């Protein structure tokens, strides 16, 4: 074979290899569980009949001691808190004996409906080398927008079991990172590979019916069509994650109260 032919053959192989690699990357990239073009239209819900579930999540037992987080490695993190100690959030109990950061969602009962993921992204901020919010909900297929308020490099690393794991660095001032989770998953822990104490929990749902308790320990899930639902509450109290389920039937325009309680694991 002449020299020119060898060069042509080599070039052709290189192009083939590049195309093959590019295709592989495309295949592994996160895709919504159901491609947008084939997704069934959202089920119309009569808003005049929807009800809601409200409730409170309390903590039983002695309030656990929340350890101080040592951030000494990164002066940027320390300075952001101006000398105030930062405590582990997964052990938090509100002053009124209720629990913050409990993810409450409709576990079952809403399967007959189809919901389109909201077009607005859910924002996860990195501020003072802690995730804000600590617990958040998002629908499968909805955009998660990760931003940073810190003048230090972070490395966002969700560790799902049923979704694709990813791991991306974000330098100070860098553009927000936008990602999606294709499948529902309760809960996806998120860590920072730069600051090992950072942790967030993401609840990925198949429906928009979820809430996270705040500093008063209460939650409200609105817009529920009449029906019977299993409501699950998830808490990271103790650091391992616990769940509690209850069934509730909502009539037209009805508001039901559901209270949950957790002990330290």
């Amino acid at each position, binding site marked *: 074979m002449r020299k020119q032919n060898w060069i042509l053959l080599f070039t052709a192989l290189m192009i083939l290899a590049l195309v093959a690699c590019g295709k592989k990357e495309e295949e592994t990239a996160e895709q919504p569980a159901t491609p947008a073009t084939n997704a069934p239209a959202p089920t119309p819900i009569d808003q005049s009949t929807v009800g809601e579930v409200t409730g409170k999540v309390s903590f039983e037992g002695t309030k656990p001691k929340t350890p101080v987080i040592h951030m000494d*490695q990164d002066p940027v993190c320390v300075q952001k808190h101006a000398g105030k100690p930062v405590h582990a959030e997964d052990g938090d109990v509100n002053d009124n004996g209720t629990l913050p950061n409990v993810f409450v969602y409709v576990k079952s009962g809403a399967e007959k409906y189809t919901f389109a993921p909201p077009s607005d992204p859910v924002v996860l901020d990195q501020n003072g080398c802690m995730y804000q919010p600590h617990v958040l909900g998002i629908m499968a297929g909805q955009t998660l927008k990760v931003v940073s308020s810190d003048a230090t490099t972070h490395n966002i690393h969700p560790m799902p079991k049923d979704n694709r794991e990813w791991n991306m660095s974000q330098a100070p001032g860098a553009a927000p990172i936008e990602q999606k989770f294709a499948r529902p998953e309760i809960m996806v822990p998120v860590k920072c590979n730069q600051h090992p104490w950072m942790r967030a929990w993401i609840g990925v749902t198949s429906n928009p019916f979820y809430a996270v308790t705040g500093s008063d320990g209460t939650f409200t899930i609105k817009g529920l069509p009449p029906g019977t639902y299993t409501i699950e509450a998830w808490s990271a109290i103790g650091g391992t994650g616990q769940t509690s389920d209850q069934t509730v039937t909502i009539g037209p325009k009805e508001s039901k109260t559901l209270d949950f309680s957790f002990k330290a694991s």
Partner: protein
Amino acid sequence: MGLALALVVICITVTSCYFFWAHTWWFPIDISTIGPAVDHQFMLTLVITGIIFVVAQFALAYAVWKYGSKKDGRKARYSHGNSALEATWTLAAAVLFIGLNLMGYKTWAAIHFIGAPPGAMQIEVWGQQFEWYFRYPGPDGKFGPVHVEKVDDAMGNYLGLDRDHDADSKDDIVTATLAFPVNREVNLILRSKDVTHSFYVRELRMKQDLVPGMEIPIHFTATKTGRYELACAELCGLGHYKMRAFVDVMTQQDFDKWLAQQAASQ
């Protein structure tokens, strides 16, 4: 051309030597009892290798000038050299380096092979991507066991201690700053949670790798109070550049106060 190249070689040699001669970038202060011995060994090595460096560079410059091609048409030619001379200086270099090693052996052994005297303060040093943690045994003088499955950085349990069930762990104190009293023998036990790191405090003249699965002891006595920097000296991943901690050498009184504060925040 040969003369110009020879002058460049001499210029580089003299400039390089100047920085050492003028102490432009020199050793930081020494705060360890072992420091003078380490510095002596370092200086001895530097002077000997420095002299060899200068002689070799000047010889190179001379050869470039003397045996390069000349304007009258004489070309430079390849010479195999002198086998006997080559064997002599290779042997001399070997003797020199082995000799320097033997001379430094005593200092090395004092840090690494001879254990800390009884009564030395015991502190565990833990490296992980990209943090340093330090553990003091508390009043009972015993370190509690480590449970890998209980390690949870986000919950402040950096070392996997079970304070509820392990009596020895109850009073263990875990900190992110390394502090110890001045003029007291300290025995550090180096451990790693993930990959190889390296404990390096310039002022202590101490550098030692942390190897996963091993407990490596090093001991020393600090002679000056102050705040110094501990840097990881082994490339350990993306955040290696920021894997650092402070080393505080305190008076015994200040140290006791500091340790009590740390114990209260556990």
